């Protein structure tokens, strides 16, 4: 956890509300976003010395509006916009604007990479430099990614309004997907700047909490938040001192964050009772079962197997089927898991996850030579450094044990 920064926290919270107020008034998202960034910068330099104003959001709206009007004026003479500002006066924005902004930033017209970057800047209030650092991308490249995203929004003519009717579930799904991807980006193991990464996950959780405040009755929003909390709880235990991967079964569970687990458990239990189960709720329920267990041996694998079956039917994702095969093996033995793998083999031929899962199941079954072969095949095919090291190590250990028996 990072130390408290009251002004920084205040600014992050205010940023989307200020932007929402400006966009509603002037309708110019791209320029408004630049103006808000300037106002935030002004606040970050002035407030620590001069004190935080009594109405921080009002202050920011005023400064940002002035910048925006200056810019609009310099582009062309749009006096009427200034008059519009004089008329409307300061007002109190709320989280509704923040969520409406998220719908804009997660618009399907954007690539996922752009949607992530834009959400972090426009809604999360992160600077371009901070986003660039967290994603290990040069600042100029990240600045362009954000500016192109804003351009796409401009061209697609997306209004500053929440979608309605049949659009609503589809667009809400993209908002949740972008938040989920932001969380995952921050949860990566084996990248350089662990602190910057953790901050990105923290940001995803914060933004998802805001969506939940605005949409308290949506069970998938609650499910996503629960999934994030239950996953975040394991962060302290998921890697060794050298950044090496520690699989769930071998993690030191005393290092899991019990407060986050408690909150996640309560959230998913409440959401589940509403009876409109979706993929995030199912994943959260699976995470909750892992987090509640004292170890791999007393995990409720039968229930996890059933939940993966449900998720498989909802998503049709073959990676889910792989996880289901593991659960089958843990519940009924490796033979059962291997039987569930067989129908996937043609569809996932050559995929590193298929080899890795089969290697584990073969090892469980005592077929060590075959397991080594699959571990090595998986290591050659994965695109992840910590996973490759883990798989190579696993194969090496089996070879050693064969030598001594």
């Amino acid at each position, binding site marked *: 956890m990072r130390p408290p920064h009251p002004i920084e926290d205040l600014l992050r919270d205010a940023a989307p509300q200020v932007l929402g107020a400006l966009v509603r008034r002037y309708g110019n998202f791209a320029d408004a976003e630049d103006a808000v960034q300037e106002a935030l910068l002004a606040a970050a330099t002035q407030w620590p010395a001069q004190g935080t104003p009594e109405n921080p959001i009002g202050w920011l709206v005023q400064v940002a509006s002035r910048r925006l009007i200056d810019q609009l004026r310099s582009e062309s003479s749009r006096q009427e916009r200034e008059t519009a500002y004089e008329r409307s006066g300061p007002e109190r924005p709320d989280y509704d604007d923040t969520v409406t902004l998220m719908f804009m930033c997660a618009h399907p017209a954007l690539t996922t990479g752009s949607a992530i970057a834009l959400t972090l800047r426009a809604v999360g209030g992160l600077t371009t430099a901070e986003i660039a650092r967290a994603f290990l991308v040069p600042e100029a490249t990240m600045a362009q990614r954000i500016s192109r995203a804003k351009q796409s929004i401009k061209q697609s003519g997306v209004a500053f309004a929440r979608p309605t009717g049949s659009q609503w579930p589809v667009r809400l799904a993209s908002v949740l997907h972008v938040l989920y991807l932001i969380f995952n980006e921050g949860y990566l193991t084996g990248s350089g700047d662990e602190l910057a990464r953790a901050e990105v996950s923290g940001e995803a959780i914060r933004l998802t909490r805001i969506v939940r405040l605005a949409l308290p009755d949506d069970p998938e929003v609650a499910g996503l938040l629960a999934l994030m909390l239950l996953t975040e709880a394991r962060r302290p235990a998921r890697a060794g001192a050298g950044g090496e991967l520690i699989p769930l079964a071998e993690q030191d569970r005393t290092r899991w964050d019990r407060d986050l687990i408690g909150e996640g458990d309560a959230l998913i239990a409440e959401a589940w009772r509403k009876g409109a189960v979706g993929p995030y709720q199912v994943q959260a329920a699976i995470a909750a079962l892992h987090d509640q267990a004292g170890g791999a041996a007393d995990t409720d694998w039968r229930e996890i197997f059933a939940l993966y079956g449900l998720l498989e039917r909802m998503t049709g994702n073959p990676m889910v089927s792989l996880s289901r095969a593991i659960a089958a093996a843990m519940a009924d033995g490796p033979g059962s898991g291997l039987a569930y793998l067989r129908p996937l083999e043609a569809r996932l031929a050559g995929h590193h996850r298929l080899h890795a899962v089969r290697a584990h199941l073969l090892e469980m079954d005592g077929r060590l030579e075959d397991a080594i072969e699959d571990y090595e095949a998986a290591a050659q095919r994965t695109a*992840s450094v910590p996973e490759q090291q883990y798989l190579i190590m696993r194969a090496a250990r089996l070879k050693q044990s064969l030598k001594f028996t």
Partner: protein
Amino acid sequence: MRFMLLQNYGHIEGVEPMHRWTPEEIRAHIAFQQRINAELTERGELIDAQALTGPEAAKLVTYGGTGEPVVTDGPFPEYKELLAGYRIIDVESLERAIEVAAQVSAAPGQNGVPIKQPIELREVMAPLGPEA
């Protein structure tokens, strides 16, 4: 997804070495490379692009135990297998990476004809996301 686009030295069938090109042809070739970099930056995709000095200046360094490291001028693999330069890009898909590589391969040579240099495309290994 991150990819590295590698370009080697080496003869390409039907293409004269660059020192036999006219200054205009060389200029056009360089401008083409710069244009690609500018475009990749503009699209928010460029991470790095560098050219390496030639094999003539290359060294092989080997740890020398307690003594000095061993530094030699070779032997190197065949000249044509030596890396001449690279780009690292961060893109949405393999398809986009192939598109960029194809564009790089279309760099013009004599008379503005694309030299069709083969571009080696390799995915850069990444950190690992949450467990499923």
